[in-house]
């Protein structure tokens, strides 16, 4: 504890030194609006730490000089994502492509049918059941076809059995094992509403916890905006990929909130709660830890995506992968920038007093 205090007091001394240097530099610079002192301060701190001309050093330099411009990139991404989702809602009425488990219908999986021609089967099956809204997909792992997945909008036993028997006839005896998932239309839509509500509540709870942790408005809001941006941008990309979201996909978005907030808490703690080194130094320390966290998760998720034989697991992994990539941008550019601006202003205010 004693040592920590000493580092704090050393920091205070540093600020005093800086204030003196600034006074010497003249009042014109110090009084040139709120944005200007921030850059001034950065110059100061840049001089203060003797940075080697390594890649890391250059990156830090780039960060110091251009972080506000980088913010435009992430804000732009968020706006584009929201626009895309807006268009999606305007054209289809839903902000995601609902899978059979969310809009009602049946998914039939023949898990062991590696040789059947999916396109031909799709044509045959559509010709046989013209009234159904049918789709045949591939069930695959490591790039190879394992079996087939049939999505249809019917839910009655007779209709489903008819489809199953039709497909069975086309398969050899050993490949006729199947699984069925049927979701009634009313349950599907009520489930969807329910989980959306749960997500909103989860988001609110999460926000409360974040506010309780940091007790300041801007840093807490930045964490929440970051989680929000992660989800919105992921939804936009998932829509572009044409992926149909199932119940498990919804769970993946919730998992995303958890993973997203992890790195943001790390970053905010380093920048706002700690005082050693410059803000950029602290950001980079946090980034080293945070990126490692994200990369381990991405590594595990990619393994799941490549090797999983389950459609459900693949969907969860896809959503997480996209979300984690956006999280890197949103945390280390957007959130970091917001916090840097915030902290610089705070320190300048301290100086002005």
């Amino acid at each position: 504890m004693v040592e920590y205090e000493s580092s704090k007091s050393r920091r205070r001394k540093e600020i005093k030194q800086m204030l003196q240097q600034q006074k010497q530099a003249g009042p014109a610079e110090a009084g040139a609006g709120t944005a200007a002192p921030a850059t001034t301060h950065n110059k100061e701190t840049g001089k203060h730490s003797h940075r080697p001309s390594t890649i890391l050093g250059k990156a830090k330099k780039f960060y110091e000089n251009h972080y506000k411009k980088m913010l435009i990139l992430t804000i732009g991404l968020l706006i584009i994502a929201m626009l895309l989702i807006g268009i999606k809602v305007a054209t289809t009425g839903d902000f995601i492509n609902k899978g059979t488990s969310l809009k009602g219908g049946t998914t039939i999986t023949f898990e062991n049918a590696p040789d059947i021609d999916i396109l031909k089967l799709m044509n045959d099956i559509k010709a046989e059941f013209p009234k159904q809204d049918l789709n045949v997909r591939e069930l695959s792992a490591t790039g190879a076809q394992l079996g087939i997945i049939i999505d249809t909008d019917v839910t009655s036993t007779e209709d489903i059995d008819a489809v199953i028997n039709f497909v069975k006839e086309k398969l050899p005896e050993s490949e006729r094992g199947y699984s069925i998932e049927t979701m009634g239309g009313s349950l599907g839509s009520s489930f969807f509403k329910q989980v959306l509500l749960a997500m909103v509540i989860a988001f609110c709870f999460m926000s409360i916890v974040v506010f309780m942790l940091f007790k300041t408005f801007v840093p807490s809001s930045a964490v929440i905006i970051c989680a929000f941006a992660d989800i919105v941008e992921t939804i936009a990309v998932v829509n572009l990929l044409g992926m149909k979201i199932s119940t498990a996909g919804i769970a993946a978005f919730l998992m995303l909130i958890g993973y997203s907030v992890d790195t943001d808490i790390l970053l905010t703690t380093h920048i706002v709660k700690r005082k050693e080194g410059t803000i950029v130094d602290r950001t980079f320390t946090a980034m080293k830890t945070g990126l490692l966290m994200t990369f381990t998760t991405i590594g595990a998720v990619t393994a799941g995506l490549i090797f999983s034989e389950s459609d459900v697991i693949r969907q969860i992994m896809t959503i997480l992968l996209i979300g984690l990539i956006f999280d890197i941008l949103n945390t280390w550019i957007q959130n970091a920038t917001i916090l840097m601006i915030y902290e610089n202003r705070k320190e300048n205010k301290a100086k002005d007093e």
Partner: protein
Amino acid sequence: MSKAKKLFTNTRVIIMIVCLLLAIAAIHPRFIDGVAVRSVTTNSSALLAGIQSPKATIAPTGREVITTVGTTPIKTVSDYNAAVSGLIPGSTLVIETNKNTYRLTVKPKYQVTVLPELENVTVKEVREVNATINGSIQLVNRTFNTTIERNKTIAKLVGAEDIGLKVFDAPTNNLRKGLDLQGGTRVLLEPERKITSDESSIIIENMKQRLNVYGLSDVLVTEASDLSGNKYFLVEVAGANEEEVKELLAKQGKFEASIKDSVVFRGGGDITYVCRTPDCSGIDSRVGCGQNTDGKWSCRFRFSISLKPDAAQKQADATKDLAVILYDKTGTLLPEEDQYLNETIDFYLDNVKVDSLNIGKDLKGKAVTDIQISGGGTGTTEQAAVNDALTSMKRLQTILITGSLPVKISIVKTDVISPVLGKGFLQNTLLICLIAVIVVATILGIRYRRMQITLQLMVNMVSELLMMLGVAALIGWNIDLAAIAGIIVAIGTGVNDVVVITDEILAGGTKDEPAALTWREKIKRAFFIVVGSYLTIVVAMVPLYFAGAGLLKGFAITTIIGATLGILITRPAFAAIAEILLKD
């Protein structure tokens, strides 16, 4: 003090080791060959030989395991199937389990055709009669030859009847594989309107009863709900195919009460009221409980029901010619109010007899609408007998309410998972976990270049997995797709936390900023972040626990349990181990 000694005397490390041992004990891994009994069919030769149908809630390793059928040792389900095919009717089959040896008589299977012609047949009937033995009047069983008239039938022997066992490969641990991993059928039912909690417990009891009568004891019926307060019922049948369960749930659950083969009333329409409150149902206070000559206790229960007038009239017609039994088995004269008629009233659920009760004497020939139904329970102690009687009473009340279900129920979701897919899914999941662990370890290896940290991380991940599985085994939680997703989240967060703790520990010591913090402070700083992310994960999962008909409940609860175990047990232990191993 050596590092090893420090490690094993550290409280946090000891707590983790104890928890791990407890987890392994709960999982109870074992090596066993044979097939476990899933369920026993009603009236089958297996049931008659005394093999009990296990409850769905029994621990997987607690199930009876068949090791030998006849002279064939049984290792797998296909061994079993081969051993029970082609049995000779009437022969004796010896089945050895890990608990007992059973001698089954193989029943012949007939194809019976009923012909229009009538015939007179003489049947042997055992009746209780009063006889004078050694000067005292006693009730004894006597066999009478009675001639009855019935339709002629032709019975053709078509082989041996199935011995009535449903089996699966013996579980090697106490983890309950959910349907996604072992195959089976899951049906979600929704009542037509909002229901009260009383109604909902009646419905659950009813469904279980109904499914049990069908011989599907390995059935889980649970209530699920969502944030709007809608209630659902989730029925999970392991290993059963779709047709079986759908037929069960689509059926009305026909209940009939008959006296001497004529139906007097049916469930639902004919019964207007079944008393379930203490004032008109419970242990019969007039008779109470008593100890029998063999040392066992027995208790009587009673409750009243109301019949529709026409059903009451039917009962009057059916009972008016019956005789009254005046003496009990010991030959003593029964008190007036305990005398009963010589025919029983039998209850059938979907044509299977579920209970047989005595009819009080005063009901004879009377068209009463309010009648008392009584029965008994036995046990080795008085309390056990009371419990047995009350359980029987509840079951009977439930049966009588069957058909008059408070609300119509419809199927809203069904999942049928083929056992092959389930098995493949489990293997695939294990493969992915293994690859993911290797990937994570490699990334951390490259970053830290310290074997120690990578090893510690592996220990951390495996401990967390074991503890989560231990808790799952302990509370009987099913490991299904949702639970696996939860385990992945929890372990993923675990890795994140480990990275945070490691970086905080290794932090400092740069040129500009010498390591200024003590270990305690470093750990404290790391735990601020760790606890912060833990809290956000937990609060994000809580609403999911209550939402959407419980479909994501498993995901939410596993994540919360996993994250909590992590923060309480493995993270402190990790920090302690890191401190001991990395310090100086």
